């Protein structure tokens, strides 16, 4: 699959997952799509490794200001009652679903295998030169950025499959 098409598929996956499962509409491409830049806001970052053709990993970071209301909507509770752990669990689900949706759309002759999503420091977000594809979208309360890096197997447990 060509890089522009992969980019387009990534954006479609992000939009579809946000709308269907999190009842959130992406407001548009975020001008701040440069990873590794100065980010004064608190963020949650999650990485999902995958094996398949191609293998790689998806890393998602979202500002906490956006993640908390998303978690509250997902869980059906007030923002004030969402713990940090619950917020991280929901962001893990968000990354897992975007990754699964993306890989299901990518032409591949093999079945893909997803590792369990892992919370990572936001500083581990891949730099531009390392990632195959980026997608940064503005949400009403912050920004969500996704980077996909392919080519290197990063899935620690080959026996795991998509959830």
């Amino acid at each position: 699959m060509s890089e522009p098409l992969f980019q387009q598929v990534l954006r479609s996956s992000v939009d579809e997952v946000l709308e269907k499962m999190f009842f959130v509409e992406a407001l548009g491409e975020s001008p701040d799509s440069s990873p590794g830049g100065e980010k004064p806001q608190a963020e949650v970052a999650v990485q999902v490794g995958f094996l398949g053709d191609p293998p790689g990993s998806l890393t998602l970071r979202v500002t906490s200001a956006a993640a908390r209301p998303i978690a509250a909507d997902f869980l059906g509770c007030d923002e004030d009652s969402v713990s940090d752990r619950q917020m991280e669990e929901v962001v893990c689900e968000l990354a897992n679903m975007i990754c699964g949706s993306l890989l299901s759309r990518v032409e591949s002759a093999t079945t893909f295998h997803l590792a369990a999503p892992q919370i990572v420091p936001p500083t581990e977000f891949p730099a531009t030169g390392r990632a195959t594809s980026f997608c940064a979208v503005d949400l009403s309360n912050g920004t969500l950025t996704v980077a996909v890096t392919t080519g290197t197997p990063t899935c620690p447990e080959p026996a795991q499959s998509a959830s």
Partner: protein
Amino acid sequence: MAYRVLIVDDSPAMRTFVRRVIELSGFELSDCFEASDGWQALEVLRAEWVDAILTDINMPGMDGQEFLRRLAEDELLRSIPAIVISTDATAHRIASMVSLGARGYVTKPFLPETLRAELERTLGVPCV
């Protein structure tokens, strides 16, 4: 008629979401049980009868594939319809889970009405 459902997923957030979506969709739930993997699900099923099972695939402990195998081997439990909820929408994965005994398959992301329709289809609930 209200139904008893078992949700099997290692993510507490996802279990809460699935339960909430079932309720929001208008599907009538009398009881909703939860388990974090296949082992825990089998324990629940030893104590409680349910009308349908909604299960994830990728779980630590006993995963969804092994759980479906165990259900199929059990003369009593094999009659309970199991629906897989997964991010994997590939034909190969769906066929694999159906061959293990899944009666339905819902890919994430999904709309509440999709989950309700799949539950009603597998339970044979007449459309209103």
